[in-house]
């Protein structure tokens, strides 16, 4: 199981690095959501199902949504 954990952690750190370096803001927001989702898996692995649920619902769900709304509201004016 430690191998799977190691793999998850590697993907997580890689997503975080790419999220900070990618040009497209929507990709960055979605990658931050991916990081939250993988972290919630780690919470489940370390015996914290409550925290995992909260992180998946709030960190990965609502947070990403408000980021996407903010991105949409700040780019639509640039085109028009």
């Amino acid at each position: 199981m430690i191998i799977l954990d190691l793999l998850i952690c590697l993907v997580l750190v890689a997503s975080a690095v790419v999220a900070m370096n990618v040009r497209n803001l929507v990709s960055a927001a979605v990658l931050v959501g991916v990081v939250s989702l993988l972290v919630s898996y780690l919470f489940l692995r370390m015996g914290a199902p409550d925290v995992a649920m909260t992180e998946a619902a709030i960190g990965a769900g609502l947070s990403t949504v408000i980021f996407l709304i903010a991105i949409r509201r700040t780019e639509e004016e640039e085109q028009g």
Partner: protein
Amino acid sequence: MKQIFAIILLLIMGWFLLGLVPLGQPTEPGVVAQHYISQGVQENRGANLVTSVIVNYRGFDTLGEVTVLFLSVAGAGFVLRRREGIERRVNRPSSEILQTGARMLFAPIVIFGAYIFVHGHLSPGGGFQGGAVVASAVMLLLLADRGHHLPHGFMHWLESMVGFTYVMVGLAGLVIAGSFLSNQGVLPLGTWNRLFSGGVIPIIYTLVGLKVGTELSSLLDTMIDTGRPDHADNSEGGTS
């Protein structure tokens, strides 16, 4: 130049963080945590110890926490307030299928959220998670139908009443058992691992769930629906 400073700062921080954490050996619970673990079930009859800690032992913190959440939502609403006379942006309306489907899904999602926060003392989950699920139902409704108006009056009323009831439950504990939000003697504690158990814990977590649900819903409503970021402000800006 700035980047070099940033890198140096990060190296220093990483060094201190690595020195801060005890790598390798797992930590043991402290004295208070030992008490929660060994006496928590006897004192509160709640199977979920995290819920017992959040709602009962540290219930006052949770009251502060929902207040902080309310303040941040109110702050976002203040910053993004709609100017008078600017009408709601009218987008292309969504298709009938999408709107009807969203309306049909709304009630089951809300019921699922309620299920999560009612069972907070028995299984993983609770007011915060359930509140987020309720808010996601509202989000579905708002995204599927842009012109949808949330019942703001009802939501404000519900939120105020929930906060008021929370404080009242706490005061009942103060009167009966001598400490704010106490669980002893306010309601019968019931049997461990049953739905009607845990004294005031399910009641408070339901209140927290309703409050978090309404707060996150009004947050989403504020973010989605404040009309266009108005050009009336350009006079302040000048450089554009």
